[in-house]
């Protein structure tokens, strides 16, 4: 990432404090040129560099915001739901003057993307959900990070342990602290029901954008049945499985995911 747009200090005194009317102010990493692609990161935050991001930057005008309260974006103490985050991002897109964009939601970010897609159906060109949280899986449960250590939770997202080593190496204390900050924010907005919305399934029928639902064949974090439910509820969706791959498809099988994206979004 070359260009950084930093979050501002904000303190609005919590849920009952005075709202901050400035708007915006989130950390957004930007790179590349072309059609806008908003990438919504996982509940574990986003590595600063990924080969997958570099490849995307060759294709798109890439925007990777740090979710409010994650990474380098300040925590809004009033934030209580993932739908709040989706509204914040709709405002961010308006502020940046972004139109004709595609959304790529990774895991937890997929939930935010799905919420956004229901809010402004005409604005969105394409929706891509990768191992998305947000709906209750008909079979199985979403893996609960509250019961797992930071490292074990991230590891559970990989089919191949070497992929974890490749991305995160020997985990530093700074990385653990970052994961803890992310986890705390996830608890603040997605504690109960854990990592899904009971109303989102009823809203997905409003989505107009063509949707690609991608799932790692060995996703141990979000059961595949959740992906199949997205496919069934979204009006124009298709489902693709990436074999020998865990939850973190963009980190474990970036080439496979890029091939699917190219086929779905086309290359300029």
């Amino acid at each position, binding site marked *: 990432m070359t260009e950084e747009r930093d979050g501002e200090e904000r303190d609005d005194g*919590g*849920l*009952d404090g005075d709202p901050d009317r400035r708007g915006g102010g989130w950390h957004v990493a930007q790179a590349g040129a072309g059609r806008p692609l908003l990438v919504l990161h996982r509940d574990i935050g986003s590595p600063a560099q990924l080969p997958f991001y570099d490849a995307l930057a060759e294709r798109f005008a890439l925007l990777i915001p740090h979710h409010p309260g994650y990474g380098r974006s300040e925590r809004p103490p009033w934030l209580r739901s993932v739908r709040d985050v989706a509204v914040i991002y709709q405002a961010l897109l308006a502020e940046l003057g972004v139109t004709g964009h595609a959304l790529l939601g990774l895991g937890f970010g997929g939930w935010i993307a799905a919420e956004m897609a229901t809010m402004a159906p005409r604005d969105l060109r394409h929706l891509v959900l990768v191992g998305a949280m947000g709906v209750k899986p008909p079979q199985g449960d979403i893996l609960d990070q*509250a*019961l*797992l*250590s*930071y*490292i074990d939770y991230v590891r559970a997202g990989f089919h191949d342990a070497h992929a974890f080593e490749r991305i995160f190496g020997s*985990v530093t*204390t700074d990385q*653990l*602290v970052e*994961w*803890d*900050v992310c*986890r*705390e924010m996830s*608890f*603040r907005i997605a*504690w*109960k029901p854990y990592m899904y919305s009971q109303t989102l399934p009823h809203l997905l029928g409003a989505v107009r954008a063509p949707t690609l639902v991608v799932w790692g064949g060995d996703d141990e974090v979000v059961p595949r049945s959740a992906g199949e439910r997205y496919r069934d509820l979204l009006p124009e969706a298709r489902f693709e499985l990436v074999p020998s791959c865990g939850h973190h498809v963009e980190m474990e099988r970036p080439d496979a995911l890029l091939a699917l994206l190219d086929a779905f979004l086309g290359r300029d």
Partner: protein
Amino acid sequence: MHLVYFTEQPMSAYSADAGREFGATALMFSNRHFDPVAGSRLYGQYIEQYLYAEEMGIEGFMLNEHHNAPFCMQAKCNIFAAILAAMTKRASLVLLGNPLPLAENPVRLAEELAMIDMISKGRLVSGFVRGGGQEQLATGVNPAFNRERFEEAHDLIVKAWTTPGPFRWEGTHYQHRVVNPWAVPLQKPHPRIWIPGVLSRETIVWSAKQRYPYIALNTSIEATKRIWATYDAAAAEVGYVPGPENRGYLQRVHVAETEEKAIQNARQFMWMQGEFTGLAHPVWSSPSGYFSPEQRRGFVEFAVGRATSPRGRPTFEQQLADMQIIAGTPKTVIPKLKRVLEETRPGIMAIWGNDGAVSDADARTCIRLLGQEVMPALREIGRSLDLKSPFEANAPLSIAHAAPRRETAAVS
């Protein structure tokens, strides 16, 4: 000095090996190891021991609660408090305490506590706690809002006790259309509130600013002195000078007729693998958001197993040497306790007498020796050191309210 007897009411009738094999004795450690036949027997035994303790002259009982763990059989301290309110005559009932953030309806707690206060004829001391980290998970309550919920539930309960209803409560975490409980405390304006704790600086500061006594739970003498320094600084900010009436201390003490027997039984304080709240799972005991952000770096290292527990896990011998555990005959424990009192200067002293699989007969011997020999001696020492309890000092109830009145002065 106000002296109270404490036991965790351990569910000792399970195999300690099972806990060791599982690697933790809380939250996910299966309740198939809980035998309700043994549980029923133990509850009966504990009730009889409290009654015996009152007969032996013990002036108060400290009660607590925990969830999903064998080290404490009280899943609801108000239930035991209600039982003892009716079955005992004089002893104070010191709840340390109700875990406020776990309550979805604090008004219900206010009602239960008011009932206990009336049934006991004004013997209730209503302590409040945040609940352990794993208990947030056991009850499905968001750890990230633990402190906010603690403070708001406290404010709501105190208001329910002191402001005639009906009133409406529109808070951040609690909203109530109508607060108008038809059970209010006998003690006016409300029962005393004491706050126990181990290591959370915010809790110490909050207690001091409320002018609530803080009860240090078996912390080392040095750590206890640091707690008082923190407390005193916060008290100075709100304009008062704390004394022994603001300080409580919990100490593990087992007494027996012989030194050998006392040491043998005191080893049972280690029955939970040396941690007095059991073998903690590092992740479950410190869920994200539960601890202060200042401690984040330390806790993330602990949570992935790279650092030892911030609470420490010293050996039995080390704990005896440091007087974290005191064991012996009354003759040998009294001088040691005198030193603890001189160093920590509490006006409230809780003696944790029995833990683990101490036999009923030995537990009763300990209770008898505490009630008839150790506690009277400590009371004398307390007098000579001018360690007045909040009752003796007629200390203000809080920064907001004066000392309580009660219809029947039941607590000495």
